[in-house]
């Protein structure tokens, strides 16, 4: 079901994006508030260019959006993410409903 709705290459980008701890940290921060790329760069012991690269990976995975504001590039969490979370919770519910059905079948055996 998940694979039907999310194309394989989208999944590749998504998992590549979260396989790195700095990128996971960036996602956590920009989900709560907006940051400029230079603001993010100040948080990590790495160059502006390296942080910019991480943001680009996250952008390709549709986890964040980037927008120019004056001289700054503003990074925000992608709101479609919340919709995705809702869908995922629905699918997780389906998994557990199936498990409960299997448990009921086992218990019915006596």
């Amino acid at each position, binding site marked *: 079901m998940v694979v039907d709705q999310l194309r394989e290459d989208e999944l590749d980008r998504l*998992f590549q994006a979260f396989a790195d701890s700095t990128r*996971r940290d960036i996602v956590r921060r920009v989900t709560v508030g907006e940051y400029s790329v230079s603001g993010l760069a100040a948080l990590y012991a790495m160059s502006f260019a390296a942080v910019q690269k991480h943001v680009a990976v996250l952008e390709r995975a549709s986890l964040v959006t980037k927008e120019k504001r004056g001289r700054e590039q503003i990074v925000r969490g992608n709101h479609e993410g919340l919709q995705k979370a809702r869908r995922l919770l629905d699918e997780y519910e*389906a998994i557990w409903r199936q498990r409960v059905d299997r448990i009921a079948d086992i218990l019915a055996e006596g």
Partner: protein
Amino acid sequence: MSVTGTTKNLEALSFTLTAEFDAGVERVWQLWEDPRQLERWWGPPTWPATFEKFDFEAGGKAGYYMTGPEGEKAGGWWRFTSIQPPARLEFDDGFADHNGAPVEAMGTTHVTVTLEEDGGRTTMTVATIFESEEQMEQMVQMGMEEGMTGAVGQIDAILAEHANA
């Protein structure tokens, strides 16, 4: 219908399900306590789970894998954080590589199971808290037969990336 209610919290990335079974609490507890019985319902029919290791005690670990129609394997582990038979069970659930070693980068979910008996019937509540949306996505794929093949491919890709890093 066995499922009596579900609650989802998008911000907290949590999911709670309540189900009622026509059996006593000791019997329902066995379905969690006995890995051979757990294997009969944890995985979808086309991706059955095999628990290779099952130290059912607080601090103990369990290791399992799920086997697909083409012989594909997807591994996972549990760490029991609290066991109070036959009423309450808590564990962390994460992904494992082909050797059963935890893949920390993929996060864990925390699961709390409570069982309550009333008049010979048992109410089971399963509360799950996810660490991140990405991790929830992977967990959903692990549980869905339609998503399993893709999930195995993703785990392989992440493991390969870590091996090359």
